[in-house]
C-alpha cells in the first residue's frame, strides 16, 4: 500500500495563494484577548522568512524551481529552524484551511528527495535509528534497562505501553513512573518489548520518510502480533506519530492509540482512580504541541487539553495556575521538529521563554506530559538557574495515587 503522507505538490494551491495576512505570527487574539507571539522561529530570527509565511513562500519557490544552488544552505536553515510546533495553523487553518504543519513537513520531505535536506545532525540520528533502532545511538538491548525490578507485567494483556526512545534512554524517570502508576492502578499491561523500535517521529518531522515508513510497519506488526488492543503512550511525540502519521502509512492500525493522560482520565471518570495523597504545590501546565495542536480528536475538536487538566485538578492540594499561552495557543517548548539536534540555541531560547512564562504564574512546579518537552524545559531551567521544578504529570499521579 502506498503511503498517504502529503507531498509538497499536494499543497500547490495553498502555496500560491498564501495571503501574507501574517495570521501565522500571532496567537488567537479573540481567545486570549492578548497580543502574543506564537512563532518561536520567527521571534528568534526576525525576518518574515522565518515565519510560516516565509516557509510557504519557500515551498512555492521550490516547486516553481526558483531555488539556485547557492541558496541551498540558507534554504535548509529556514526550512529546518522550526520546531514544527504548529502554532501557525491557528488562523491559517481556520480561514485559509491551510495546514502549515503538513506543509512544512512536506517541504522537508521534498528537500530530502532533492538531496538538499536534512541537516547533518538529522542524518546522524537517522543513521543511529537504522543501526540501533533509536536516534540516540544507544544499544538496542539496553532499551528496557530502566525497568524496575518487580514490575508486574502480563504478556497476554490487551493493554500495551509504548515507552519510546526518549523515556527509554534519556528520561527514564518517566518510564519508571508510568509502569509504577499502571501497577498501582492494577492495570494489566505488557510492554511492546524488545521489538519496540523508534516510532519514527524524529524522521517524519525532518522529512526522512523512507525509514520512518519501515518503522511504522514494523511497530504496528509487532503490536498486532502481541494481541494488544490498546496502546498507551507517555510520550506526546510517539502518540502523535501513531495517531496522525501511522494511519497514513499503514491504514487502519487495528488497535487503539491513547495518551496516558486520556487513559487515566477515563479511569478517573469511572471512579477507578483514587488520588488521595495530597501534593500541596502551586503548579502550571505546559501543553506539548504533539498532543495539542497536532492531534485531531474528532473532525471538529483538536488537542488533548482537558485530560491532563482534569487529572491535575483531581490531585488533592494542587493549585493549578495557568499561563497565558495555553491549550491550542500554547507556546512550544522549542525541542521538536529536529530543532534540539540541529539548532540548539533556538531550542534553548524558546524553552527559556516558556520558563519565564511559567515563573510569572508563581508556580513551584512546571508540569507537562512529554519526555522531550521535559528534556528541553529542564535544560532551560538549568540554564537560567530558575527556581521552579519540573515534573511529568505521570510522576504526580504516581505520587498521589492511593
Amino acid at each position, binding site marked *: 500500500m502506498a503511503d498517504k503522507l502529503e507531498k509538497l505538490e499536494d499543497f500547490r494551491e495553498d502555496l500560491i495563494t498564501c495571503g501574507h495576512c501574517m495570521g501565522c505570527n500571532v496567537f488567537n487574539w479573540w481567545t486570549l*484577548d492578548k497580543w502574543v507571539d506564537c512563532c518561536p522561529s520567527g521571534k528568534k530570527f526576525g*525576518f518574515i522568512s522565518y515565519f510560516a509565511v516565509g516557509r510557504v513562500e519557500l515551498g512555492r519557490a521550490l516547486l516553481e524551481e526558483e531555488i539556485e544552488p547557492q541558496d541551498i544552505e540558507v534554504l535548509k536553515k529556514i526550512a529546518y529552524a522550526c520546531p514544527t510546533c504548529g502554532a501557525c495553523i491557528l488562523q491559517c487553518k481556520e480561514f*485559509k484551511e491551510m495546514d502549515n504543519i503538513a506543509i512544512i513537513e512536506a517541504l522537508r520531505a521534498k528537500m530530502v528527495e532533492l538531496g538538499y535536506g536534512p541537516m547533518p545532525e538529522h542524518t546522524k540520528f537517522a543513521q543511529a535509528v537504522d543501526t540501533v533502532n533509536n536516534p540516540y545511538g544507544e544499544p538496542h538491548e539496553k532499551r528496557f534497562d530502566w525497568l524496575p525490578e518487580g514490575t508486574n507485567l502480563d504478556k497476554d494483556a490487551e493493554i500495551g505501553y509504548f515507552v519510546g526512545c526518549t523515556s527509554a534512554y534519556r528520561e527514564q524517570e518517566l518510564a519508571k513512573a508510568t509502569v509504577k502508576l499502571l501497577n498501582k492502578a492494577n492495570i494489566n499491561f505488557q510492554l511492546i518489548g524488545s521489538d519496540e523500535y523508534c516510532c519514527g517521529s524524529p524522521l517524519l518531522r525532518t522529512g526522512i520518510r523512507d525509514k520512518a515508513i519501515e518503522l511504522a510497519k514494523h511497530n504496528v506488526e509487532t503490536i498486532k502480533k502481541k494481541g494488544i488492543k490498546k496502546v498507551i503512550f507517555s510520550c506526546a511525540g510517539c502518540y502523535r506519530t501513531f495517531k496522525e502519521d501511522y494511519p497514513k502509512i499503514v491504514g487502519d492500525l487495528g488497535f487503539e492509540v491513547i495518551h496516558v493522560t486520556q487513559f487515566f482520565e477515563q479511569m478517573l471518570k469511572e471512579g477507578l482512580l483514587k488520588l488521595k495523597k495530597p501534593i500541596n504545590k502551586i503548579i502550571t501546565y505546559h501543553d506539548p504541541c504533539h498532543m495539542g495542536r497536532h492531534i485531531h480528536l474528532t473532525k471538529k475538536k483538536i488537542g488533548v487539553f482537558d485530560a491532563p487538566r482534569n487529572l491535575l485538578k483531581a490531585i488533592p492540594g494542587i493549585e493549578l495556575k495557568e499561563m497565558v499561552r495555553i491549550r491550542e495557543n500554547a507556546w512550544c517548548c522549542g525541542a521538536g521538529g529536529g530543532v534540539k539536534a540541529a539548532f540548539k540555541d533556538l531550542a534553548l531560547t524558546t524553552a527559556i521563554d516558556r520558563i519565564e512564562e511559567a515563573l510569572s504564574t508563581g508556580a513551584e512546579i512546571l508540569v507537562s506530559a512529554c519526555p522531550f518537552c521535559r528534556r528541553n524545559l529542564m535544560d532551560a531551567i538549568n540554564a537560567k538557574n530558575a527556581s521552579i521544578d519540573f515534573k511529568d504529570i505521570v510522576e504526580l499521579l504516581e505520587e498521589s495515587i492511593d
Partner: protein
Amino acid sequence: MPDKAIYEQIYQKLQSIVGPERVSNDGPVLIAYERDQHWPFVTPTRPAIVVQPKSTEEVQQIVKIANEHKIPIVPLSRGVNVRGLCVPAKKGSIVIDLRLMNRILEINTEMMTATVEPGVTHGQLQIAAREKGCRICIPGAPATGSILANYLLRGVYHTNAGDGIDHALSAEFVLPNGELLKVGSAAFPNSDPYWRYTCSPDFLGLFQSMPGSMGICTKMTVKLYPLPEHEVWFMLGYDKIEDAIAIIPPLMNAQIPSVLWVLPQYTLIKLIAKKTKELEKLRGTFPEWTIPITIEGPKEIVEAKVKVAMDIIRKTSPPKTPLKPVPPPTNFVKEFKYPRNILGFLRAGSYHALAFYGPLKKYPEYIRMMKENGEKAGYKREQVDLLASPYAQFWGQACYYEAEVPYTSAREESVEMVKKFHYATLKDLIKIGIYGWFRPFLNPMKLIIDDLGTYGKLWRDIMKLIDPNEIMNPGKVFPMEKELT
C-alpha cells in the same frame, strides 16, 4: 543599478549599523519579500537586501547610505498589504523591514493619545488601549496590520466615532537624506506631540496616502477614543440596493451611527462562514443587502439616538427584516473590536483588492456597471459584489467602496478573468466619476496620470523636491516610465 562591489560595501555598512543578524542578502530570506498576494497585478521583484532596524537612528543611517548610492528603498511596517505597496518595483532595492520597531511608546489617557512605532499592530494597540479604558479607531483590516501604516495610508474604519478618516495627530519621518522631520505639534518648540494643527500647512497630510514614497514614518501619535458605555445594534435586510441606501443620508447627517456598512449577501457570508464549503451553501439564506449599524455612547444618548434612528428608517425605507435592535452575532461584535474574521476573505482563494472613494448616490450605477463587466469577464452576475462604508461625517456622501469577485491566483483562467474585470472596471469608474482611488496602487494610478493636470504635476514636483534621487519606494505612487503601457 550599482555594481556588485558597491552592494557588497553597502551590505557591510548595513551590518555595522544593525548587526550581522538583522541584514540579509540571501535568496531564501528575500523570497518572502518579493511578492504579496496581489502578485498577478504587481510583478514580484526580489529585493537585493533586507534590513531590520530597531531604532529611528538606525533607519536614518540606512536611508543615508541608500541615498548616497541612489538605491531604491522600500519600507515595510508589518508586511500585511494586499496591493504590492511593499514589493519593490525596481531590481536591486533594499527592503527596510520595520517589524522589530514594535513598541507602544505611550498611552496617554489624559490626552487620549497613543504613540507608536511602525511595527505595532492594530490588535496590539487595541488590546493595550482597552486595558486602559479606551480604544483605537478600528480599521476594517486584519488586526495583524500596522496601525501606523493604516493611519498613514488611511483606511476604512469600524469605529468612525464621528471623526472621519484621519486618526493621526503627529509623526516623525526619516527623509531620503536621512534627516528627521517632525510634523504636527511635535515640531513646535517645547511642545508635546498631541495635536495635528500648528500654524503651518498640514504637513502630516502631505505624507498621507503615500506608501513611504517621501519618507519613512518611524513614530506616530494617534487618537484614542473612549470605550462605549452602551451599544445597540441593528441588522437591516433589504432586497434592493436603492432601498438599502435610502436610509443612509438622513442617518449619517443626523450623526447617529458609529458603524455602518452596506454588505452584499456574499460578503456577509464570508464574514460569518466557518468553512469554505459553507460559502455557496449559505447563499440565499440572507437578504441581498444587509446594513449592520452600531449606535454607541452614554446610555441616555444611545437610547435617544435609537429612537431617532428607528423613526428615520421607518419613514425613509423600512427593511424586510424586523426593525428592532438585535443581539448581533458574537463574531461580528468581536470583528468590530479587533478584526479577525476578515481573514475569511482569503478563504475561497485570493483577495481581489479594488477599492475607491465615491459618493453614496452613485452606488447603484457602480454596481450595475460592475455586474456587466463581471459578466463580460465570465462571472455570473451574483458573483460580483460591491460593499460600502460611508465615512463620518459624510460630506459629499463620501463612502469607501470595495469591489469583489471570486478568484484564485493559483489558476491561470481565474487570474485572466479577474484581470479582465479589474481593468474594465477601473476605466468605467473613471467615466462614472469617483473621488479617488483608495490608496495609490499602481494599476489605477496609470489610468489617471495624464488627467491630473496641475495637481498631478505639483504632486510629482513635491515628491521630487523631497526625494530628488527617487529612492523612496519608487514606482508605487506614480508608475515608472516603462510601466506606462
